[in-house]
């Protein structure tokens, strides 16, 4: 990389100079002889840190918390949220051999499995203080059991889902700042951390999460477009429950009127994790999606292999059930265990037009996210697909989504006319802004942020692809970056990506100072709650807890938190 000094990179730098504010870019011209300029970093200059200061990296999810030290390849511990954590100290019933929690009582009133979740994204009516308490206890456990650290304040880096609503983030910040006293907390969005953990600058992150599936396109370390569907791990476990209930003996499995579940959440999610799998894409499914006979022919080999496996063995699987009325062993065909996945993630029996935007089948979700991207961005993202999240452990699911999307691309190309976004555009003038566009001018961006909290703000507008930069960069590379073909890559994970970012002393997306949070945070949070009640699904801007200026909290439109 050091060879072409003076030739190719120089014009590049001069281009950069033109765009840089005066004074900011002069060092570019001096070439390789210039010593590294100390960069402002969220962690301060290295000299101000004690050599042994450990930065703690925490990845928050709805089901679990992963904790470790910056520079480590993997978290040192993972704490799952569950009912046992919500008991009083000294209540050891759960450890008694004869104790069996009455899961039916715990699940009553639509709460089946809810005590395994840290939060719900719809914060209406939820106890934010409880979220803070849960986090505090889980973190204490993680620190004591896995990190083995004392209670001296330590800097923290959090990896947070970009869809996390402000009131939740605020509650967690309140709890951690007051209970653990970290001097600063830096926030990183998980899609960005995943991209870093995969070695790429652009990616399409498909997060098959618990509460929802989120598809985020990252381009040059910036989140560009995010789309989500409520189809997630929870849906899958519900569908598995449906399957089990269907195969339980009639009559006895009839749920009582107040009871909508016949098997405990714990058992059902265990069975889901162990036994549920996903069928490969079949040609017959596609014929519904497409009216194109040719596509079926193209996919014939896949269809064949599917038929092959089906005929090889049609054994049934025996699944022990303990939480049902009486312990039993359920016998059901192995093929049946692929049904929950179909229903939860694909619903292939329905036509694509019948889905609301927030419940899109996953392959359509991915396809439409790509469709929304400018050509250049899309070319990069589609060649860097990263599957992550708990449901990426469902055997066959990643491949299925990938194949379905590939098929859609082959079949439809990138003609937006077939996309729903365009249909909406035609019928609904309000959604016009959702269509990706090139940024016309900078002035355009700042003025019109308020109207649509999700899509229409600076963070979500598509940056113009700088063709000169692009070309120059490519010229400098040994191998031209792969683009335009569908390709999935593997990321170490968001936690590990954050560990790299922190270890390399790169700044986090946002850094919040404890003192400032304790002064302003509460006010900001309460304001945030108001906003959130009204618009329900507004989420946090990139650590932008508050938008606008300090003490002037009038401008409350927020973009997707973490969108760079």
């Amino acid at each position, binding site marked *: 990389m050091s060879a072409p000094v003076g030739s190719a990179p120089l014009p590049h730098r001069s281009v950069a100079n033109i765009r840089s504010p005066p004074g900011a870019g002069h060092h570019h011209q001096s070439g390789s002889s210039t010593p590294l300029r100390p960069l402002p970093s969220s962690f301060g200059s290295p000299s101000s840190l004690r050599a042994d200061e450990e930065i703690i990296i925490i990845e928050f999810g709805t089901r679990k918390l992963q904790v470790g030290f910056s520079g480590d390849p993997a978290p040192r511990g993972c704490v799952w949220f569950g009912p046992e954590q919500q008991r009083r100290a000294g209540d050891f019933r759960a450890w008694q051999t004869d104790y069996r929690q009455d899961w039916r009582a715990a699940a009553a009133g639509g709460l089946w499995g809810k005590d395994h979740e840290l939060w719900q994204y719809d914060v209406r009516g939820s106890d934010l203080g409880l979220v803070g308490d849960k986090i505090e206890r889980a973190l204490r456990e993680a620190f004591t059991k896995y990190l083995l650290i004392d209670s001296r304040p330590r800097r923290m880096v959090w990896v947070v889902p970009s869809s996390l609503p402000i009131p939740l983030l605020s509650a967690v910040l309140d709890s951690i700042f007051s209970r653990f006293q970290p001097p600063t907390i830096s926030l990183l969005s998980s899609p960005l951390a995943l991209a870093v953990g995969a070695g790429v600058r652009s990616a399409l992150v498909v997060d098959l999460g618990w509460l929802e599936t989120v598809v985020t396109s990252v381009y040059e370390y910036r989140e560009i477009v995010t789309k989500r569907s409520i189809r997630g791990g929870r849906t899958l476990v519900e569908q598995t429950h449906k399957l089990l209930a269907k195969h339980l003996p009639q009559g006895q499995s009839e749920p009582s009127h107040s009871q909508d579940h016949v098997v405990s959440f714990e058992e059902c999610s265990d069975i889901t994790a162990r036994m549920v799998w996903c069928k490969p894409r079949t040609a017959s499914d596609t014929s519904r999606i497409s009216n194109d006979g040719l596509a079926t022919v193209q996919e014939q080999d896949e269809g064949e292999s599917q038929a092959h496996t089906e005929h090889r063995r049609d054994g049934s699987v025996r699944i022990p059930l303990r939480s049902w009325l009486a312990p039993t062993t359920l016998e059901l065909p192995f093929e049946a265990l692929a049904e929950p996945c179909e229903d939860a993630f694909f619903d292939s029996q329905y036509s694509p037009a019948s889905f609301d935007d927030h419940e899109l089948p996953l392959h359509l979700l991915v396809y439409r996210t790509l469709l929304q991207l400018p050509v250049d961005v899309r070319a990069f993202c589609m060649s860097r697909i990263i599957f992550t999240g708990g449901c990426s452990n469902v055997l066959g699911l990643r491949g299925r989504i990938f194949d379905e999307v590939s098929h859609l691309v082959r079949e439809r190309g990138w003609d937006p006319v077939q996309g729903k976004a365009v249909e909406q555009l035609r019928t609904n003038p309000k959604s016009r802004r959702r269509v990706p566009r090139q940024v016309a001018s900078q002035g355009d961006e700042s003025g019109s942020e308020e109207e649509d909290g999700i899509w229409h703000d600076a963070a979500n507008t598509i940056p113009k692809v700088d063709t000169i930069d692009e070309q120059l960069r490519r010229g400098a590379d040994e191998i031209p970056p792969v683009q335009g073909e569908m390709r999935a890559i593997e990321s170490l994970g968001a936690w590990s990506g954050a560990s790299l970012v922190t270890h*390399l002393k790169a700044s986090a997306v946002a850094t919040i100072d404890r003192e400032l949070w304790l002064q302003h945070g509460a006010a900001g949070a309460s304001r945030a709650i108001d906003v959130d009640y009204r618009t329900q699904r507004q989420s946090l801007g990139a650590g932008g807890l508050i938008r606008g200026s300090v003490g002037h909290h009038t401008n409350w439109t927020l973009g997707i938190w973490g969108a760079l």
Partner: protein
Amino acid sequence: MAVLTPYTFIQCPCSDSSTLGRPSDPNSSTITEADEDERTFDPRAPRSNFSLYPLEYLLYCEDCHQIRCPRCVSEEIVTYYCPNCLFEVPSSNLKSEGNRCTRSCFQCPICIGPLAVTSIETRPDPSLLAAPDNTAAPHSGPYALTCSYCNWSSTEIGIQFEKPNSIHAQLAKLRNGGSTRLTAKERKERRKDPAYRRYQATSSGEGESDQTENLDLETQFANLKAFYQNQLADPNSADTGLAALGDLGFSSPTSLSRIMSIYTGGSLQDRKAKSRLGAMREALKPDEGLQFAHLDESAAIETLRGEGHDGTASITQLVDQPPNLGEEHLHGRSRFISELRPIPYLLRTKRSKRCPVCRHIISKPEAKVQTTRFRIRLVAGSYIPSIAIRPLSLSATAGGGGSSASGATLPGALLEPLKPAHFLLTFKNPIFETIKVTLGAPAETPGRFASKVTVLCPVFEVDANTDVWDEALREGGATGGAGSGGGGEKGERRRGRYDEGSQANNGNQLEVGKIWERGRNWVSIVVEVVPASLRLDQGDAPLREDEDVLEIPLFVHVEWEGEAGGDDVLESVAAKDKGGEAREKRELAYWCVLGLGRIRK
């Protein structure tokens, strides 16, 4: 239904919701204490579970005169040790070696029982052991880790060891199935090896022969790290690279306004950042940490079909597994029991605890791993009154005013809905001063099922926990008790006038404002409850776990006069006692929860 023994939980004042979100300082907590009794604490609120502790879990700061719970102490680590081999681990090892024992201590991945190193060869032929000339035989390899509880053996995952010691190091080089891998250290050394570098140079010259090389997670991380460091160090990239991520956010760590302005940041900055980023490229090959995803999982699905439920690990078993850095991302394949790994024991710590306000040590364990003793341990039970609960049967003494049909008499018996029941609360004073106790309880318990509560005697004094000698000296023969004159034997309870008084006064009858019984350093009072009916109407949510337990919130306010001293003048009113010592009035207030019993459904 399990029998319920009456219980008491105490809420640490630090968890008062009004102090949350603010730094914990003593001033703010005294302010809130004043308002405390105006709110009713709901023990059933989900948050209450996070702030309630049995008395034994609580410590006490003698200087701040405050309860300290696990949430409001600051901890320091005295020792790190392995709970299995009890070896101490120096703190420097933690950073480098991780948080688990690196000797030969492992837990069974199936049942988490301890695994033992056993020789594979000797097991099938125990007769060899007896032969005198074969003493070396049991110590010849290969070896396996085996569980004596569930009979799991590491041979089931294809792993066996050459040596019976340093299993951790051997295991790090073995993948499930038995194939070997390079550890991080070895890889680093390999990189330095000139022969290997020559090989690398030639192979990369050939092009993309290793484009599809599968890296284990540890290697991928190392490669990525090296790649980024290399990119950042590249003179061509100057100050670009990952550091420029900061430009996309905001770089000042202390400026909240910068945080707020992220979205108004405009594209000038972005443009600049992007052009800077331009000089750093992405990872292009496995050597740089790039890995393609293997999406074809049909082989794993076939395995699942063949192995069935028995071939998979439970969620609990998977949760106990430490991250397996010796493999690539397994995704769904991690579910198979053939992918489980022996679990190296997590190290543990011994911690001393300080009061976060005054920094005094309130608990300090012996440093030696083998002992569980403490050098210092200021348990709250030595400072605040304990509360014992006993159901009270009135049938024997019934007839007096206020008494009624007998309530639950047997411990654990169910409480009858809508029938008054009585409980005896015995407050025992652990300190050497007389305390004045003031109780507050809501007339009805909060929650869906409101039971009526009456504390018959909410204000009373409990005498000091003076020992027998002390009391004898102080009171001389004044009360004329037999015990005082003779000095008594050690352990003799001197109850003197209290016993006489309580017997004479009310003959153990229920009377509002009267103490039931009192002793040397204890007082019993009566609480009357009328349990609610648990009948559910149509459409009501069913009973939640423990919703049938009658729990009453009780606000306890304790006042006493202590020796002056310390710098804590705030809440103390200096006074002179008869001995001429400076006395200070002190107080402590907290909520507690009394679990009385289950109500009949």
